[in-house]
């Protein structure tokens, strides 16, 4: 007697379920008639299947319907909410950018200040330029003083002294040549004492005149802008939150 193979078992299982073609079914049926082993297996498979089909159907112990939370469903948001969220994000981002600009680039303040037509360069330069118009006035008394004493120290500030000397004492036009010579003979050392009093005097005058410009450098982004951005961020964020909460409550009431 031929021992059934697993291929035979597969054919018998499919035959049992009516999944063989007519030709295959006919061939298998003719084999079953002459091979009792095949008949036994067919009976076993049939009985196993019948037992499984007889198993009681278990009913669900509870309902498995989904709640919105379980399904992860979110309420439909009002159209304004995404726009408000964008506004919040943008305003916050810009606010941080202004802080960064003020913290890391304070020098940005000066060029903007200079661009108003008051000169260029760094902050110190700006101060000097601001005080420059005061120089003639400051130098004038010094020049007259120097001219009165005919001191060679005057040569240290030729540009300033020439005009007053010329206007005040035309008869003394040729006289300055001597002190100039003597000043050059004296060398650079003679210039030192004259160079010092003038700047100190000048600085004192500058400090008196340039008082308002020695304030801390102005911020790259004004405080008002920052406050404005903060208000926009808070207002749009708060409004978006309120609108979404309202939508959520309405939606929950509907779902229930």
């Amino acid at each position, binding site marked *: 007697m031929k021992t059934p193979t697993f291929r035979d078992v597969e054919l018998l299982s*499919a035959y049992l379920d009516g*999944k063989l073609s007519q030709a295959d079914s006919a061939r298998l049926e003719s084999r079953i008639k002459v091979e009792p082993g095949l008949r036994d297996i067919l009976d076993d498979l049939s009985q196993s299947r019948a037992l499984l089909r007889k198993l009681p159907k278990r009913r669900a112990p509870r309902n*498995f319907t989904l709640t919105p939370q379980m399904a992860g469903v979110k309420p439909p948001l009002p159209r304004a909410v995404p726009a408000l969220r964008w506004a919040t994000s943008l305003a916050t981002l810009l606010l941080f950018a202004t802080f960064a600009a003020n913290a890391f680039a304070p020098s940005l303040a000066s060029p903007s200040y200079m661009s108003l037509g008051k000169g260029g360069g760094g902050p110190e330069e700006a101060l000097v330029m601001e005080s420059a118009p005061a120089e003639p006035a400051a130098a004038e008394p010094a020049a007259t003083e120097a001219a009165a004493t005919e001191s060679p120290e005057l040569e240290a500030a030729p540009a300033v002294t020439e005009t007053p000397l010329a206007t005040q004492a035309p008869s003394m036009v040729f006289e300055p040549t001597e002190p100039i010579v003597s000043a050059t003979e004296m060398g650079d050392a003679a210039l030192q004492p004259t160079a010092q009093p003038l700047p100190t005097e000048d600085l004192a005058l500058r400090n008196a005149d340039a008082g308002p410009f020695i304030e801390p450098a102005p911020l790259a982004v004004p405080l008002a802008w920052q406050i404005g951005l903060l208000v926009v961020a808070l207002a749009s964020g708060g409004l978006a939150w309120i609108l979404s909460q309202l939508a959520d409550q309405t939606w929950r009431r509907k779902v229930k």
Partner: protein
Amino acid sequence: MDETALIHDAQRGDLNAFNTLVLHYQDILFNTAMRVLGDEEQAADATQEAFISAFRSITSFRGGSFKAWLMRTVTNACYDELRRKKRRPTTPLEPEMDDGEEVETPRWLADPGLTPEQAAEADEVEHAIQHCLENLPTDFRTVVVLADIQGMDYVEVAASVRAPLGTIKSRLARARLRLRECLQGFAELLPASYRLEGEKA
């Protein structure tokens, strides 16, 4: 119940439409999970997970048998449960040899210490069959549960477990054969009309 319309609405996010489908299919899904897992609590968890997963991915359903599609989600949920069970093992599904190899024969299930009377006390035939089912390899078990317990067509079973038709036929034949061997150990529990060949002889 207009299933197509409900599916369409559910795909648009209508939870009520989906819940109508849930009520229609929950018994079938729970029964399948119960037979695959053999534990009511785990089966309930797997069923719930399957419905949640089904709702979240319902837009990926492109027609065909919705039942088969749902069966796939519950089968996957059952596999996840079984993996969790394996991570927190209580009793191994398959006994192991000394060298760590799994013993494939289900004959060990016919517990020699378990008399027919004791087995009869443990809910008789149903428990015996469930016992044999649980000790089939998972792939075989799923196929036999879908085909023989749920009465699904081969094509639907193939769609549910994402396997070729030939594989389904082969797994089903093997599963039935192994069940027959296992159930012979419980022959005395079985109703006379369902006595197996070994018992009859």
